[in-house]
């Protein structure tokens, strides 16, 4: 980067702007090098008695940072040493170095700074992280099975969606129309909703319902987050309420027992009463999200009987039980026609459902 942008070549501009100043010395440019070399000493001398030590330190630090920006091989380290060193809280050089390393992620505990930019398309996959970092050796295996299961479900839905129902009686047709929503309810309530996301063979009317269901479930969880924040507000714990709102759902990842000892919450100075309140809402949160019951999800997924006429059917109670039993039976029969699907269905689906 050229630093010419800092320069002002035309001296006359200043005069036009009306600067009130003594004329510069004739030999200004010639004197430059010598003066720059003793800039620090000169500056301190110039300011003696007019500015305090801290201000002087900042002024000199400012110049150093600008200098590092142009020439330092390790700008961030050098510049941060100046800023951390200027901070009135930090006096010992060891503290300054430790904090600087910490800011840069160079303390060596669990992370290091990459020295090169990484190409944009090298985001880690879940399998990479599981196997290389978290010692979960079955991750790739699980991934492959998930992909196979998704393929099978896509094929099964394709079969369900493209059956010819024109010769069916009204009763039979309506019963068969319940198959796809019943399958979706079954997968949601078995915590296998990941298998239904982005399935291309899923008719759009149901894909939209699935998307909507995801959003509603998340919104309900966010409502509980807001309820907890308000409860803290009512108790005069605004700082905690703010943090709950900012963290959102992530707040509920922490166990009630641990929030008082975690460093990231240390500034909140959580009390025993805060923990008790959190415990109360966490139960509610867990019930609303970890367990998606058939009753709960059947409010969100409806049978599309005649979309143009706006006729939909909600599967409740006995009708839902029968519809789920039907689709399980059809699935089982369909899977037996293909040896691979049959094996997969036995190993994964039936074990989980």
């Amino acid at each position, binding site marked *: 980067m050229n630093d010419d942008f800092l320069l002002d070549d035309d001296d006359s501009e200043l005069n036009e702007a009306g600067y009130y100043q003594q004329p510069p010395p004739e030999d200004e440019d010639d004197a430059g090098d010598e003066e720059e070399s003793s*800039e620090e000493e000169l500056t301190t001398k110039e300011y003696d008695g007019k500015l305090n030590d801290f201000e002087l330190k900042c002024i000199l630090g400012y110049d150093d940072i600008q200098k590092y920006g142009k020439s330092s091989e390790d700008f961030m380290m050098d510049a941060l040493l100046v800023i951390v060193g200027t901070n009135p*809280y930090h006096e010992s050089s060891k503290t300054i170095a430790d904090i600087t390393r910490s800011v*840069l992620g160079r303390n*060596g505990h669990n992370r290091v700074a990459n020295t090169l930019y990484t190409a*944009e398309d090298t985001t880690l996959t879940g399998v990479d992280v599981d196997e290389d970092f978290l010692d979960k050796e079955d991750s790739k295996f699980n991934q492959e099975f998930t992909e196979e299961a998704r393929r099978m479900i896509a094929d099964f839905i394709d079969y369900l969606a493209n059956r010819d129902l024109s010769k069916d009686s009204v009763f039979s047709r309506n019963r068969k129309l319940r198959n796809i929503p019943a399958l979706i309810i079954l997968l949601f309530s078995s915590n296998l909703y990941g298998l239904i996301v982005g399935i291309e063979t899923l008719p759009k009317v149901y894909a939209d319902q699935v998307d909507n269901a995801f959003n509603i479930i998340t919104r309900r969880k966010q409502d509980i987050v807001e309820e907890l924040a308000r409860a803290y507000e009512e108790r005069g714990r605004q700082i905690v309420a703010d943090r709950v709102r900012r963290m959102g759902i992530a707040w509920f990842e922490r166990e009630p027992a641990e929030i008082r000892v975690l460093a990231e919450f*240390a500034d909140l100075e959580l009390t025993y009463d805060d923990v008790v309140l959190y415990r109360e809402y966490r139960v509610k949160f867990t019930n609303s999200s*970890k367990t998606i019951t058939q009753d709960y999800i059947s409010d969100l997924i409806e049978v599309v009987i005649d979309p143009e006429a706006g006729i939909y059917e909600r599967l409740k109670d006995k009708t839902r039980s029968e519809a789920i039993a039907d689709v399980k039976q059809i699935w089982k029969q369909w899977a037996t026609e293909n040896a691979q699907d049959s094996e997969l269905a036995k190993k994964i689906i039936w074990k989980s459902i």
Partner: protein
Amino acid sequence: MGISLELLTDEDILDYSREAGEDHVLTSKSDLNLKYDNIRPIVGGCYDPVIFGSPFADRCICGKIRQPSKSPCPNCGVRVYSKEEALRRFARIELPFYYLNDLRFDIFKQKFDTIFKDTKIILNFSGDDLKRLGYSARGAKKMGIKVFDMCQFDYNPDTKELTVSEFITDESKCSYEGIMKIIEEYFPEHLTEYKKLINRYYLVLPAVMRPFTLTYRDGKKLMGTHKLSIWYSSIIWLCCVEDKKGADKLNYETVMESLKTPGERVRYTALLRAYLNAGKKEATELLNTSKENLARELYAVRTKQNFWYVKVTNRLST
């Protein structure tokens, strides 16, 4: 294909970092929580899962969703964005002070001279030579960016005199905020243009452009953090007013509260302005010289993917 740098105004940054009425603002210096049996991005940090989505390319954090999805996972609440969508996920850091990108200094200086063309400018410094005092790169009377970063500006409308002083008595009259106050009161017709030249927001690029990596050192597993993410974290650490976690004393508000005089507070802020400016090269490789310049590489390989990368990277605010 031509490549040019475009410096974003605060309004541009807001456009990039807002979606459906939601502001994508980073407030935490932390990146990822590695203490659990998974990798959990910290909300508000530089891999905020709400803003940037899952840190993994192919699944949500809990692993229930294993493909790109428009909807959040009901369990962990995180979306898995497609690459195209992930590249549109920008955020911003809101600074507690204005700063001037020094690539804009010439234009800023022209604007300053235009606004105060009928004003007598009086320099109140400890010596006559601004260069000697480090306030200018060249010329005894030329005001460099350091003057605007840390000096006090007093305007007398009766005498039409602007006194620029390095001796600070009133914090509110200093630097870009101080000049803005004068413009607001006496030269309001220039305010909009003036505000376009300075920034309080710092654009944060999508997480997918600065992915973390895993590495081994001496048999120990370590997470490799992208230098751009470290750069953002350091800005939040030093400049953010919200994140006061832990015992460190780098938080801007904490430091400012400990400083006694207006002069100390103004100088410390100037130090941070210098950090933001001098560290531009940490934020983009488009400012590197010759062979190390990203533009050179992009010219050599003009793929569709890289074209998008140029578009995004070019629009860095700093």
